[in-house]
């Protein structure tokens, strides 16, 4: 058995005249959180739709090594039954997957909805509804989970709760394929990320490796009098600065790591909004 749960080969899709995805090739390993990052319109949702067989690619192929009932999906337009309660909705999804009802309580507690279990879905706030939909997507303990911007438009506290849940799922063996345009989220959650820009993967790797790869060729020197100087890493430039400031005392010298957003910007010249 291969260690990849998803692998694609030169996936392309054309809508009308426009090529929306261009030769996308990547692999997702078992039990990792794989982040698919890109600005709005990059083709993230389209990729999920291809992987979950809602769309056929124009060319190329993809392979997902999970059965239909081993997959969970939270799409950008998932829905729940508005007139029924949180508890009833989740019980329904449990029944659909023949999951033990005990799990309903467990999951509702995890997504912090147990107190609101008797509320009707139509009376939920946006964040609560999103947590319910996530609960519905994971009630059957999927082997592979697709999440399309799971925390978009949620407050930081709710986002934090969802992150904890996702890390917990990953630690229990679920592979997660997640799209986001929130770089901090990707940094915090993802084992590996792919940067998607205008339908092309421009970089792929684990966040810490990427940060090293794109580390700036400068260091920052902070002096005792709070003066900070950024200087090239080579010894000559360094010595020059030190000579010029021989009367001063150094407080710290540190290398400057770019964050994912800066790497994305330097690769594409685009902001991630």
């Amino acid at each position, binding site marked *: 058995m291969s260690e990849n749960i998803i692998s694609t080969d030169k996936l392309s899709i054309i809508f009308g005249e426009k090529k929306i995805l261009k030769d996308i090739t990547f692999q997702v390993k078992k039990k990792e959180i794989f982040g698919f990052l890109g600005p709005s319109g990059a083709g993230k949702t389209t990729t999920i739709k291809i992987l*979950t067989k*809602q769309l056929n690619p124009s060319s190329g192929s993809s392979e997902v090594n999970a059965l*239909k*009932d081993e*997959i*969970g*999906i939270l*799409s950008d*337009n*998932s*829905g*729940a*039954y*508005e*007139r*029924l309660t949180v508890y*009833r909705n989740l019980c*329904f*999804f449990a*029944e*659909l*997957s*023949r999951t033990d009802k005990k799990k309903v309580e467990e999951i509702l507690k995890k997504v912090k909805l147990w107190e609101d279990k008797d509320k009707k879905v139509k009376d939920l706030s946006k964040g609560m509804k999103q947590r319910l*939909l996530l609960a*519905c*997507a994971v009630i059957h303990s999927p082997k592979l989970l697709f999440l399309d911007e799971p925390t978009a438009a949620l407050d930081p506290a709710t986002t934090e709760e969802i992150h904890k849940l996702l890390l917990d799922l990953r630690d229990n063996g679920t592979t997660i394929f997640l799209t986001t345009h929130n770089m901090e989220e990707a940094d915090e959650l993802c084992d590996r990320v792919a940067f998607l820009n205008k339908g092309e993967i421009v970089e792929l790797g684990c966040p810490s490796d990427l940060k090293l790869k794109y580390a700036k060729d400068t260091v920052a020197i902070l002096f005792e009098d709070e003066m900070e100087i950024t200087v090239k890493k080579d010894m000559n430039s360094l010595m020059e600065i030190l000579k010029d400031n021989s009367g001063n005392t150094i407080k710290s010298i540190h290398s400057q790591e770019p964050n994912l957003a800066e790497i994305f910007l330097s690769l594409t010249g685009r902001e991630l909004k």
Partner: protein
Amino acid sequence: MRFYKIKALFKLGLEDLLKNMNVFIYIILPLGFALLYSRMDAMPKGYIFSLCILLNLSMVPVALMGTIIAEEKEKNTLRTLILNDVKATEILLSKALICMLFVLINNILIYFITSLPINTFVLYQLVAFFVSCAVIFLGAVVGLFSKNQMSAGLLSMPFMLLLMAPLFVLMVENKVIENIVSVLPTDAMMEIFSHISDSSMNFSNVGIPFLIITIWFVGSIVLFNIAYKKVGVDN
């Protein structure tokens, strides 16, 4: 098709329907009419029964069926279900079962409200049930073509009018319209009803009506299949 999925869908759909006043009216209306008309002594009971059954058959299996399918699309639950390893046919079947349940309950209640003689009960019910089965496929077609509840309401109008046409035709004197109406399943049903009521039913006088209903049955299944292949459930 998997029984446990259909069972879960059926239970949930039923609960949801009972909380949905907007469409519950489709179920209540035929009963309301039955209660109202049965107090009027001027009208023959058999006629009131036929009238209310016609209303029931156009409301529940057509308008209700179409609307509850369309709502699943409108609220994105249909897509969510399909992504959760539920088949479109399982969803449609569960909806059809829910509608058939109410058709049946209404048909029975209408029978007792209009207090027709008990000895013809089974015969009346069987005929009404047979026509309902044919008509529910038309409701499914309405559901397939509608994106939301509003369009389902609109799209079921022509079907409802068509099914209820045997009532209106009495008011107009037009050979062409009469001919059209005479091949409707509901008109055939009314003819069989009238033979049941005056105990004149035999093979020669109900053969043609039964044939008409059967043709509609087969026709609506074919229509449904074409629509299903063409637009699918989630277009």
